[in-house]
């Protein structure tokens, strides 16, 4: 049963991820990406990480993608006005992603020897355990990332501020 659910979710995730890249219309890309996020949230559920699953949906599908979608909707994305990238950019993009693919394949080939700490504990993904681990074992990285977010937020606010003497 779990295997079939896993296979189904994996199929949906990979299909949606491919369609995100292949869709001509950017709005359709965003919708496929949301589908992909839901499939990944399902994977988290299978791993008993229900908190992670629901937060994944709230943050990515519910907040970030809504912002993406509303920005995309306001853009004028007609074929006539769309700028086509020069050939150099296209070729360099292909080479760069090919290199990334190479690294990923190399890592995955070695992955058989990796020792993954398998835990059978059922409560590993629940909010109580997660909170304890996050604020006990990983307190420093946790607080550090919050400072990082704060600086990003201040930067964004600063960018939108009008300078002195500047009108609108």
């Amino acid at each position, binding site marked *: 049963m779990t295997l079939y659910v896993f296979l189904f979710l994996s199929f949906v995730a990979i299909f949606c991820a491919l369609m995100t890249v292949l869709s001509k219309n950017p*709005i359709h890309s965003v*919708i496929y990406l949301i589908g992909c996020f839901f499939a990944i949230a399902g994977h988290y559920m299978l791993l008993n990480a229900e908190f992670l699953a*629901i937060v994944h949906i*709230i943050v990515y599908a519910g907040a970030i993608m*809504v912002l993406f*979608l509303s920005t995309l*909707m*306001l853009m004028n994305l007609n074929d006539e006005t769309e700028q086509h990238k020069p050939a150099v950019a296209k070729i360099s993009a292909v080479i760069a992603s090919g290199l990334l693919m190479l690294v990923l394949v190399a890592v995955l080939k070695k992955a058989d020897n990796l020792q993954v700490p398998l835990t059978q504990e059922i409560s590993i993904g*629940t909010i109580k355990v997660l909170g304890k681990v996050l604020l006990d074992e990983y307190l420093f990285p946790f607080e550090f990332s919050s400072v990082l977010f704060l600086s990003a937020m201040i930067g964004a606010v600063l960018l939108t501020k009008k300078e002195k003497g500047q009108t609108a």
Partner: protein
Amino acid sequence: MDIGFLIEKSAVILVVFGITMLVALYSTFGERIFASYFQDRLGPNRAGPGGILQPLADGVKMFTKEDFIPDTPNKFLFIFGPFLFMTTALITSSVIPWGDTLMVFGRIVKLQAADINIAILFVFGVVSIGVYGIMLGGWASNNKFSLLGAVRASSQMISYEVAMGLSIIAILMMTGTLSLRSIVDQQHGFIDWSGSIPWFSWNVFKQPIAFLVFLICAFAETNRTPFDLPECEAELIGGYHTEYSSMKLGFFLFAEYINMFISSALIAIIFFGGFNYPGMDWAFRTLGMNGAALIGVGVMFVKTLFGIFFYMWVRWTVPRFRYDQLMNLGWKILIPVSIFNIVATGAVILLTGK
């Protein structure tokens, strides 16, 4: 899986679904009756005695109107929009505890479709998905007014979700749980005698600031006046549902009433003690478990229906905000207030040590 469990859950789900639909149906009627009362006119009184069959007449009208689809390259998304909005509105009712436990044929039945321990987060997740219905529908309409309505809806929803989440955090710090049932159970009775000073056990008396922020955000999340800018007819014709007709429009309008019902139920559960009422221990002793639980369900519905009435009361009393006022209220007032509330709650918990 136990077959009795399956029957029990199916029955609960079907009853909850039916009641949600019925309440939403008669909320549309109630809205028109209250509107006529507030505006000193008669209101709908032709269909049936006192106009009681008006919702059915409305439904027939909606179904039999021409189902017009505009010339849009995204027919699928145009149809998908209202479907998604309706679905997300209905899903939330699955985690709401409508009452205490009942004893039916020797089985203990929880009056809740799914008692998951991250229920509040589930509600937030579903609410944040709900905006896609409006956005996709508005965008696929291929109409500038619809698009503006959709963009307004999305930015409004995101802005007020932040304040809503922050206001709930103060409650979560106090209760220490994300399960709605545990939150209700902690508000047992009406007055809590166990502390050094007896105080009301309902959260609204412990967290009045959180309640106010949550209430305002609930108005914004359900797109009700004074925050119904996505469908502001003075500026945007019909907003995101300008191009919709027939039952697709009906779905958009109907889902708004379902959202009202669910959010009123949520406010009743988180802040007004849900199915708890004064003297419930006495009722438990004299009437037994089932009697006390049924009174609890009744109390829960009275609280929820009062919430719906409050929505209508505000709608016909307060004028609509301007868009910059809406954003200022959300980001510059509600969020700082709820952060202050979180800090104050933390300080009190630290000082009193509970």
